[in-house]
């Protein structure tokens, strides 16, 4: 039953107006997605089209003209971006932050998941505590970490106590190091998600394969590297892609901790677009930048997801039904 039975049953259509009759000719399956389609058209398609247009013209709201009256300049914006060092720095900084944070979140998440794999005392309570950071709105996390890393803050004090020498470093004003509290905040915020995903993944492993490996003489090391990890690969891949998609969009944390500063030292692409777009009003320029980022992200994700897509195609439930 791949297609539903057309909307209404043909009970008494004679007396209904033309609207009703048209409605019953369109299957229910289409009606159900109309609201979503409307929203998507307004919030996805229209903005995308406008954005593409903006990137190909020269326009700012301060020009005082409608966007359709803007001068068409082909790919000048894009070319200019390639020589804009601030943009390029923001661009690469974004991917640097993404790669580092996702990787570390993954390590911590996996490590913790392995620790709670078997029963242990207080397991449920510990898991509840460990996932707490994920519940925080990112802005509040940013606020919290801002307070932690301030010169007079507890982090500096702890380091002083540990190192034995006075350590009072203004983390968030340092061009080289301000990025670290931000990344630590991001990792703190989201490692619980990786943790939950890994716990779920480990739980879903086929127990008999694990037992078989045991009986065949595998050590715990072997068991992990040669059996569990390969079985977890698809889940790990999904988790990494989903997280990466979100870290690329990182804004709240950086805004509240450093505003992208000092100067432009912690600017990622979103901060850049915010400042250039909404402070300098260079809408066209920024739109082009956004498209560059999107294209780069899509390329990376498709590359990462390729092995998964093969497997999904093989076990498509519809082809199973057809058999």
């Amino acid at each position, binding site marked *: 039953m791949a297609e539903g039975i057309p909307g209404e049953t043909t009970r008494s259509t004679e007396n209904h107006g033309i609207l009703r009759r048209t409605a019953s000719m369109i299957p229910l399956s289409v009606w159900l997605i109309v609201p979503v389609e409307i929203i998507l058209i307004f919030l996805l398609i229209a903005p995308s089209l406008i*954005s593409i247009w903006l990137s190909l013209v020269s326009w700012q709201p301060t020009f005082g003209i409608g966007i359709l009256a803007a001068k068409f300049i082909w790919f000048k914006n894009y070319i200019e971006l390639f020589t804009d060092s601030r943009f390029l720095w923001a661009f690469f900084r974004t991917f640097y932050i993404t790669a580092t944070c996702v990787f570390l979140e993954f390590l911590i998440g996996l490590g913790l998941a392995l620790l*709670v794999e078997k029963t242990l005392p207080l397991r449920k309570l510990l898991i509840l505590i*460990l996932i707490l950071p994920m519940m925080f709105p990112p802005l509040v996390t940013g606020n919290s970490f*801002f*307070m*932690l890393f301030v010169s007079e803050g507890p982090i500096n004090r702890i380091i002083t106590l540990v190192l034995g020498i006075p350590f009072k470093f203004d983390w968030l004003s340092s061009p080289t190091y301000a990025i670290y509290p931000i990344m630590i905040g991001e990792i703190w915020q989201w490692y619980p998600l990786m943790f939950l*995903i890994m716990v779920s993944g480990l*739980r879903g492993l086929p127990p008999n394969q694990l037992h078989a490996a045991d009986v065949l003489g595998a050590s715990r090391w072997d068991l992990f590297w040669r059996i569990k990890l390969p079985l977890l690969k698809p889940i790990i891949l999904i988790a990494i892609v989903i997280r990466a998609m979100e870290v690329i969009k990182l804004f709240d944390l950086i805004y509240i901790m450093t505003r992208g500063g000092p100067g432009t030292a912690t600017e990622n692409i979103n901060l850049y677009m915010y400042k250039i777009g909404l402070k300098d009003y260079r809408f066209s320029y920024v739109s082009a930048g956004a498209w560059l980022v999107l294209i780069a992200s899509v390329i990376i994700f498709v590359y990462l997801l390729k092995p998964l897509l093969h497997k999904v195609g093989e076990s498509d439930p519809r082809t199973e039904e057809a058999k």
Partner: protein
Amino acid sequence: METRPYGINDWARTVVLILISIVMVFPVYWMVMTAIKPLDEWLKYPPVWFTLRPTLDCFRSILGVLDKPIDFGNPGQAAAVPAILKGLFVSVSATFISMGAGSMAAYSISRFRIGGNFLPLFILSARMFPPIAVVLPLLVMYSNVGAIDSYWGLIVAYAGFTLPFSVWMMKSFIDDVPRAIEEAAIIEGMGNFEVFYKVTLPIVKTGILVTALFIFILNWSEFLVAFTMCYDRVETAPVFLASLFSAVCGTLYGPQAAMGLIIVIPVVIFGYLIQEHLARGFTFGALKR
């Protein structure tokens, strides 16, 4: 899992985890402490690990409770309550819209496979756009209809951004319902929409609740869009928090922490309520516990 008494190995792991938990909870602890510290202890160095003079002044100042007005020098600082209410209004409304549209679409995708592989992935791709990139064209669009700094403008935007979650999560829940139940209802003469409304939806009640709470949390926590598209009238809770930095009097740690806590508490409560389904939510239905 085997039921056997805990061995030394197990206790060792618990100890390690307790230590890790302490480290992870520390930022929260610090925030709570800051929110109840008196003004002179905010920036004291060495920091006050545990205040002996807890006070609710920070909360009072932002909530505008006037029996003991504490002015930290920030005009407009007592606007927490309006911000919270506006945030609630926007979040709840957007959740309703997103859930309504999303559930219907999810049903169509799950049962009728509408749009094949393309439509669901297209909806998912909405999450790939950096919000800023969408905000700029939205501002252009909204300015033409006067929707900037408007409630409906923000609500519609939020609904759109959370659609991928509502569609994919509900699809995942609906997929779990065996088709046989629906087919039996159809054989008994129910129209297709009736089946959706009277048969399927009640079965996925929990799924609806979970997805709705999840989306509410996302809306409530959202900052960027509210910040950029509204400047005066529509101030949501996170935006208000950000405003507690002022050029005039520097950073108001205490009130910030207090507001942070206020924002966080509903989220934490709801989050724990749906914690079983968090993995499913964030992976768009790919992983079910």
